[in-house]
């Protein structure tokens, strides 16, 4: 066996008691509530929490605080809610179906695929309207998700984390250099693209949330359906077949869910990395190996993390703002490195 190719992954195999899991879910829900409240209250114009509640329940059109909360921060918070949940659930599914601890929409190039589609649209068709750009991100994300899945599952034996991560990085490098090629020949594209690509909840992309809701919803339903099949498949493909799981349907469902969720998330907020990587690891530590429980917990923890990152980005460089995509990369990279350092090589 070629030395370092086989890499193992410490994962919990003991079942976490139901009471402890409920406790964790309640805790995550509280954290999400706190993050959502902070997302409404904190910013260049701080609004006290009592005022926030009043703005939500009994809005007064004359009060500027209420206008800030309802017109600016509420849409942004709702976008963060949907995007965070979608990315985290997609991450759980990707890690389960590829049996790979490093699967993440950002790291595996799904975001780069969406970006490439957007650049092509700006360049070839001169589209600058963010709401329409959002829809173009969709097929790009889907194509790369399918490709990554094919790469991760094809070949003899399961893909090692190294193989999958290198394939994702190579795809990303390829797409990024093609993007650069377009941007160099066309400065107008560069100007539109450089703001789209950082990933932000604040932009006019928030307008596109409502038409995307069916994609988020369908993705969530598919995710829950696929999760129970993935549980059986965790024992190995043969065991899953023996338990009555149709592997083809399970994989197609997972892929569909990932495409819908990632595509909608990228469409709503631009490419945001590391949420899909970090949250699944956190929830697996709390909830144990049950994929369904992990999907539920990720749907709470993902938006909590994303909203917290967004709030942090608003206060970290005072007059301006750091976009949430940058913040998640800054928070996520150290956790990624920690995960890699904890992985061990299985003896050859």
């Amino acid at each position, binding site marked *: 066996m*070629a*030395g*370092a*190719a086989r*890499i193992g992954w410490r994962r919990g195999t003991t079942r976490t008691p139901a009471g402890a899991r409920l406790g964790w879910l309640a805790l995550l829900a509280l954290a999400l509530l706190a993050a959502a409240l902070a997302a409404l209250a904190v910013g260049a114009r701080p609004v006290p929490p009592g005022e926030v509640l009043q703005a939500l329940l009994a809005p007064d059109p004359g009060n500027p605080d209420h206008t800030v909360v309802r017109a600016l921060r509420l849409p942004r918070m709702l976008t963060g809610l949907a995007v965070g949940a979608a990315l985290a659930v997609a991450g759980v599914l990707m890690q389960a179906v590829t049996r790979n601890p*490093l699967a993440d929409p*950002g*790291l595996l190039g799904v975001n780069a695929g969406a970006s490439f589609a957007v650049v092509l649209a700006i360049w070839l068709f001169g589209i600058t309207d963010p709401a329409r750009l959002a829809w173009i991100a969709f097929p790009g994300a889907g194509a790369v998700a399918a490709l990554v899945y094919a*790469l991760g599952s*094809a*070949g*003899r*034996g399961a*893909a090692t*984390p*190294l*193989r999958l*991560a*290198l*394939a994702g*990085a*190579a*795809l990303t*490098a*390829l797409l990024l*250099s*093609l993007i*650069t*090629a377009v*941007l*160099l*020949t066309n*400065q107008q594209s*560069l*100007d539109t693209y*450089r*703001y789209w*690509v*950082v990933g932000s909840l604040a932009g006019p992309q928030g307008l596109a949330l409502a038409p995307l809701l069916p994609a988020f919803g369908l993705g969530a339903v598919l995710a829950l359906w696929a999760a129970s099949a993935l549980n059986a498949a965790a024992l190995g493909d043969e065991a899953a077949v023996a338990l009555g799981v149709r592997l083809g349907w399970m994989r197609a469902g997972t892929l569909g869910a990932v495409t819908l969720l990632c595509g909608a998330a990228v469409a709503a907020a631009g490419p945001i*990395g*590391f949420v899909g990587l970090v949250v699944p690891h956190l929830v697996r530590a709390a909830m144990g190996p049950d994929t369904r429980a992990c999907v539920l917990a990720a749907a709470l923890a993902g938006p909590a993390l994303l909203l917290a990152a967004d709030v942090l980005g608003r206060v970290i460089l005072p007059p301006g703002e*750091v*976009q949430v*995509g*940058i913040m998640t*990369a*800054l928070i*996520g*990279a150290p956790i*990624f*490195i920690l995960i*890699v*350092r904890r*992985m061990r*090589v299985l003896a050859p």
Partner: protein
Amino acid sequence: MSAAPGHLVLRRGGVSLRLPRREALACLGLTLTLTVLALASLALGDYPLSPGEVWAALWGGEGHFVVQQLRAPRILTGVFAGACFGLSGALIQSLARNPLASPDVIGFTQGAGLGAVVAIVLYGASGPSLLLASLTGGLLAALLVGLLAWQNGLRIWRLVLIGLGLGFALHAGVEFLMTRGDLMSAAAATQWLTGSLNARGWGHVGTAALGLALLGPAALACGPGLARLALGEEAAASLGTRCGALRLAGVLLSVLLSGVGVAVAGPVAFVAFVAGPLGRRIADTAGPGLLPAALTGACLLVAADLAGRLLMAPIQLPAGIFTAVFGAPYLLWLLATQIRKGAL
């Protein structure tokens, strides 16, 4: 005498040199290709010259400014930088035993990019200070990746994975700074991040030649050790290879060579990545194929520069675009075939 079939054995007095025949022939062929490309690049362009005119211009005839001051330095910079990239890629691929590894994935390129974009956007830098900023950024990033990956010695898979993760964070920094600057500095930064040979002078040639002269022989000296390491760690150790020292030296040389290349030509995409496997294929060698990789890298960069000057004639595209366009289909082919074979 003929104990090594398929090898050329040269003996003179007490010194003998054993060369694999196919590899020697491949190097000869690549050198010829490189010469032809360089001559074509001297002659073609906005100001075309016949071969006779090029010859005259080299010795001070008409058009000597174009040939001596504009074309010759950029071609030589391309040759040396391409060789540096090729060697750098072949070293890291041989160590990682994976044709997908390249200096881009150990964080160096992203670090260099961040250093350069900081210099361009925040300080409006150009010229030597830009070069220094990019080198510092790249070396710091590589050092950080190395330190983070160190855990009872250096493991290449951990180095690659941590390099990937840190690279993503550094790239996020680049994207952040791009939104902070005005459109002009964003365009300048994009230009730099692509890598090109435009407006290179003899100073660049000197830098690249010095770097290659210092680091190249050391890299080539690693070749036999890398070939033994490919047999597996135990086998290599029992043959007398000091695996830990070799890994460290290989990674260091790879980073430094890549640094020389980035310093003179910018982070040209895919040259380091493609040159290694392509060189090995041309030379049909089982070893790391360092010399063929260096020559292939030089050919690729000079060819990409030539294509960038000719194909969309009044516009001069940076070489980095064409290396990406050549490299991309190869990458997809590699992913498709190697993964199907389960060889990756």
